[in-house]
């Protein structure tokens, strides 16, 4: 007895029989029909395969924001010219022949395109990482900064800036930031594990403790430095920015994002189980402690990579998962792809605002994300305090 949606009139015996039935042969396994999909979708008001619609809308939004990001900057380039330059870059001279200044092409292709791509990669990675971390610590109020690796990456960069250690070429600062993140990852991992299992509480406490220590260390390094410019350079790392985007900086974060997204999607089911509670997750077949450790390493590594290329950008990893869960539900199989797209859109948008709102001065991206994310976070807390959501 298998296949169709059960008739509500079915008797208990029949229902029990369904539960006791054997699964169909592999070739007969079919994916659920529209009726089931309709009922599956979560808080989204009633019916509708909201998951797919939202995914498409998010992709479209991403496209719009990306194009907007290419059109604006400290040098004014006509929108039509910008689009023509892009088309020309992709299709060559036979479709559109160049009628613009070569420098405008350089600006668009060498500074704006890598910038938008970097912002998108970083935003998507932060959002996916944030959602993963919220599952790992089983708290939707957590974000990538809670692991301590953001501070570790910033400290790694500041150490190099302070003592002028060079030798790794153009990527010295980025590499040292990543090494700082890795070192912090190791320490937090060790601290959270000693004397017991890596529970969510221990993980959060270890991360917060490391963050505090590293922040103090960074401040100490800056204040005792003979270099008066160190403070403003460090500000970049603590507030984030995409000014250093260039093509040769892109491969690492792009690959990291892809790998991270693939791994996270593969683990989507297991991330769902974590939300049920440690004991229930074990009872449902998950090796909770090993899985949590593995996901922590993944999340921390991805966070380290994003901080090392763009500084600490807050709130993307914290609020995008909330917005996405509100729209498509908490099931990670639907939520992760959506949050990647939304995170990319949000960050590209924030970067656009950051560099145009008081042009030619550029605000750090982290300020924009905090200005949007901070109030939203407060609103979230208040909504939670008033009661656990409401009935449909």
């Amino acid at each position, binding site marked *: 007895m298998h296949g169709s949606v059960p008739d509500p009139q079915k008797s208990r015996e029949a229902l029990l029989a369904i539960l006791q039935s054997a699964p169909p042969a592999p070739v007969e396994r079919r994916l659920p029909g529209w009726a089931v999909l309709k009922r599956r979708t979560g808080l989204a008001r009633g019916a509708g395969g909201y998951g797919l619609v939202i995914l498409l809308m998010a992709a479209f939004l991403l496209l719009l924001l990306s194009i907007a990001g290419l059109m604006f900057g400290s040098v004014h380039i006509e929108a039509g010219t910008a689009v023509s330059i892009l088309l020309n870059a992709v299709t060559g001279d036979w479709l559109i022949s160049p009628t613009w200044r070569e420098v405008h092409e350089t600006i668009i292709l060498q500074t704006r395109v890598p910038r938008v791509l970097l912002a998108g990669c970083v935003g998507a990675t932060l959002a996916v990482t944030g959602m993963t971390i919220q599952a790992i610590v089983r708290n939707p109020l957590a974000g990538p900064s809670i692991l301590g690796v953001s501070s570790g990456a910033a400290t790694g960069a500041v150490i190099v800036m302070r003592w002028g250690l*060079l030798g790794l070429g153009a990527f010295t600062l980025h590499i040292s930031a990543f090494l700082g993140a890795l070192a912090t990852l190791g320490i937090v991992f060790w601290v959270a594990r000693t004397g017991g299992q890596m529970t969510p509480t221990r993980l959060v406490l270890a991360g917060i403790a490391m963050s505090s220590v590293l922040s103090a260390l960074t401040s100490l390094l800056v204040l005792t430095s*003979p270099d008066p*410019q160190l403070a*403003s350079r460090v500000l970049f790392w603590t507030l984030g920015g995409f000014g250093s985007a260039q093509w040769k900086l892109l491969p690492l974060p792009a690959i990291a994002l892809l790998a991270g997204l693939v791994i996270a999607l593969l683990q989507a089911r297991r991330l769902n189980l974590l939300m049920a509670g440690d004991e229930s997750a074990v009872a449902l077949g998950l090796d909770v402690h090993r899985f949590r450790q593995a996901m922590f390493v993944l999340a921390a590594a991805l966070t380290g990579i994003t901080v090392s290329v763009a500084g600490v950008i807050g709130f993307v990893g914290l609020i995008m998962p909330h917005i996405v869960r509100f729209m498509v539900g908490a099931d990670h199989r639907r939520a992760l792809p959506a949050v990647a797209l939304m995170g990319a859109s949000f960050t590209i948008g924030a970067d656009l605002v950051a560099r145009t709102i008081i042009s030619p*001065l550029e605000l750090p991206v982290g300020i924009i994300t905090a200005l949007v994310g901070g109030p939203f976070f407060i609103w979230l807390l208040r909504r939670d305090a008033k009661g656990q959501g409401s009935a449909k």
Partner: protein
Amino acid sequence: MTAFSATTRLLAGAFSLGLLLAAPALGQAANFPYTDENCGVTTVYDAPPERAVTLSNNATELMLALGLEDHIAGTSYMANLKISPEYEAVYNTIPILSPLVATTEQLIEAEADFVYAGYPDGFSESRHTRDQLHDLGMKTRLNVEGCNLGPFGFEELYAEIRSVAGIFGVPERGEALIETLSGRLDAVAEKLEGVEPIPVFIYNGGEAAPNGVLGNTLLSEVVSAAGGQNIFADVANRYGQVSWEQIAEREPAYIVVFYSGTESGQVVDDPAGQLGQGRVDMLNANPVIASVPAIAEQKFVLVDSVQGQPGPSSVAAVERLAEAFHPEAFR
């Protein structure tokens, strides 16, 4: 009849004239390729850059002092400060790209091939690193005060002038400028011979805790050359937070109020009023230092970053400060 025919004399004359005209070019060609080792970056120049962009006022003034205005495509970061009068006319003929540090996009649009920054924040991760600009085909230079962590005096400034002159293939102009500057310094030193230096505090803002300009800066040397003694010259650092008590204890006779054109990264509309005079007001309002001679007798001198940062105008600063500190030596 003469030993040489008219034709020969004509040819000889033309040849000499040609040599005379070509001499600079030939001399110039002999300077290249020029290797510039600057703050850890080595750049080789095969020819003088044609489209330079400056990222700070002292960089602008240095290039203008060397007569390189034809090689400048744009200037930036003057904010609302005024360039020194001797360069004003020429400065106004050059495009100003931005009141703040020019962005990467502005540099690309200006088709810059040489970017010269006066302070390290011109080449930071948040704006554009030297490596990034290099990838875009622009050569770069950072004023050596930006990566110099020890004492910085006029010899170091002359080295900077020589380097920039070398890059543009005009070493003789560099030497001429150095001679003029050192001549003016010698003149001041002569007038101040036998005069006792007065204690001076160089104030860089800050209300709860004052920021002082310390020993390893050119401004500290400027004060020394002007017959003063930076009360914090013994601190082997560039800038730092000191305390009102220490200032009260060291009893400066004069306070140099140092300010730039921006505050917290924003362009200030009236730097002399808001930052310069504003800082004087802050000093006057502070009870801890009220009995210090500089406050009691209202002995303040305002120095903005055009004169305060290492550049040719630093010598003008020496002259101005010397007259303020020791007016009797200049009657």
